[in-house]
């Protein structure tokens, strides 16, 4: 069990049966009263943030969570398969857990897989990925006045991203996996 002096950013605890991580905390102590740690916790499953005041002397239950770096291998029906680089252990994760970013995943992409009670519950992609543009209409010069400053492009993993008009097939582009947005052109192939 943890007590309030163990509270720090990133501490993983179990509250009401759900795993949470500490995102922020502050020591408070009302005059003539016990000390409390005003703590903000993020639910590792839903992302929801809650605030609790933990009184000095109260205990917090550690959550059995583990983050492991794993490589994305391939898609199998509605599941994605990941492999631990060291143990070669493989796990299957439902694609919906990753959401829209799943179509930006290239083979061998190193991801962070979160395990709760030995089961994978969340996957975090690298913030940025570099992918090659495999299909896109050529940009039409002079067409920017109408506000059409971007166009759709398909990248090698099959995902579709809005890109500036100057992007061509064969360009390598950097994409933010959190927002699914184009960031910059990296180089011409």
């Amino acid at each position: 069990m943890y007590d309030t002096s163990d509270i720090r950013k990133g501490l993983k605890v179990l509250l009401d049966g759900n795993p949470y991580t500490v995102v922020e905390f502050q020591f408070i102590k009302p005059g003539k009263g016990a000390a409390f740690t005003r703590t903000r916790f993020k639910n590792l499953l839903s992302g929801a943030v809650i605030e609790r005041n933990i009184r000095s002397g109260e205990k917090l239950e550690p959550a059995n969570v583990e983050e492991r770096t794993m490589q994305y291998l391939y898609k199998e029906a509605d599941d994605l398969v990941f492999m631990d680089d060291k143990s070669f252990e493989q796990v299957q994760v439902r694609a919906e857990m990753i959401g829209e970013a799943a179509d930006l995943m290239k083979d061998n992409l190193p991801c962070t897989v979160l395990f709760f009670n030995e089961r994978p519950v969340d996957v975090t992609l690298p913030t940025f990925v570099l992918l090659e543009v495999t299909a896109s209409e050529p940009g039409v010069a002079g067409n920017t006045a109408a506000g059409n400053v971007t166009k759709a492009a398909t990248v090698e993993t099959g995902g579709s991203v809005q890109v500036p008009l100057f992007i061509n097939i064969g360009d390598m582009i950097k994409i933010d996996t959190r927002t699914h947005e184009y960031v910059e052109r990296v180089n011409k192939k």
Partner: protein
Amino acid sequence: MSAIRGRVVARDGDDALVRTARGDVRVKHAGAAQPGDLVELEGAGLPLRRVRKYPRTEYPPRGSEVARLPPSRRGNLAARGRMMAALREFFASREFVEVDTPLVVPAPGLEVHLAAVPAGNGFLITSPEYQMKRLLAGGMERIYQVCKCFRAGEVGHHHQPEFTMLEWYRAWDDLDAIARDTEQLVAHVATAVNGRPQVTVQGKQLAVDGPWLRLTVAEAMYDHAKVAVRGDESVAELTEAVRAAGIDPGTARHWDDVFFTAFVERVEPALAAIDRPVLLADWPAPLAALARRKPGNPAVAERFEAYVGGVELANAFGELTDPIEQRARFEDDLGVRRARGLPQYPIDERFLAALGEGLPPSAGIALGVDRLAMLVLGARTIDEVVAFAAGEG
């Protein structure tokens, strides 16, 4: 070429940092020169060789023990100094005597939630109140003190284990006089530093000229936590009321813990949202500490806390002058300490003897000077307004 003289201010491995009239220079292969040594640079047969100008921004070198305060810290310390001058001027103009009582005492405060730091054969004070009240019993009528107090384990945005306390007392006077002093003092020092009676809390400006909003604890708990508190209910009754208000008292089993669970969750944030300072008065008897019970309503004590922008700035008592009740409260505190496995401290018999000889009706207050400086200077953490923060001593 003539030599330049300088003084070594730091060593960084084989190099020395030398302060000269033309600025600081880093000198390579500085031999045995030690910080404090006077040296000459760039001359035939001299021990040190000038290598390059050291830009001010790179100073001090990493790992060096030379401290250079960031400009914001220097500005805050200068403003804090002006605030302290204004504070002393305030008390001098009201004919208060500045006193200086011992920091090392045989019997520190017995309050259950304070941990004293041992020192020599005694302890460092957690507050100078016992000694100051002995001065009142001894015939002093208006006294104030600015001193360090020590409370182990308290570190946070508003806490330092070693902090500066201001306490002042009025014999033959009541809590209302202390309330007026508090309003006027804060307005006075804010005006001295900022040009007007205004402070800044979390970036938000707040007028501090009086009168401040007066609220009772019962009103604040009912309005903001929907918990009715009288002060004479049992723990079970209070716990029930807190639960009924939708607040989880968790593992709290003691009256004060149940109360503060609701207070911290609902009342403190609400006080922070009020756009004027608040004097929160009439504390429930279980939280009386060293305050006397209110004549006419023994369920509450003559005690107020000053909250400015949600920051708890000061705590005031209509002083308990009855030596028998005071001894009983000390023994209760020691009983709770025993039950919770907390350190036992001696009872301050000199203080009780002074009450026995006769403490006049008095009122007094303890105010956190670092927090006052935070408010006046608009700082977000206590570290910004002290010369050295916890662990930097």
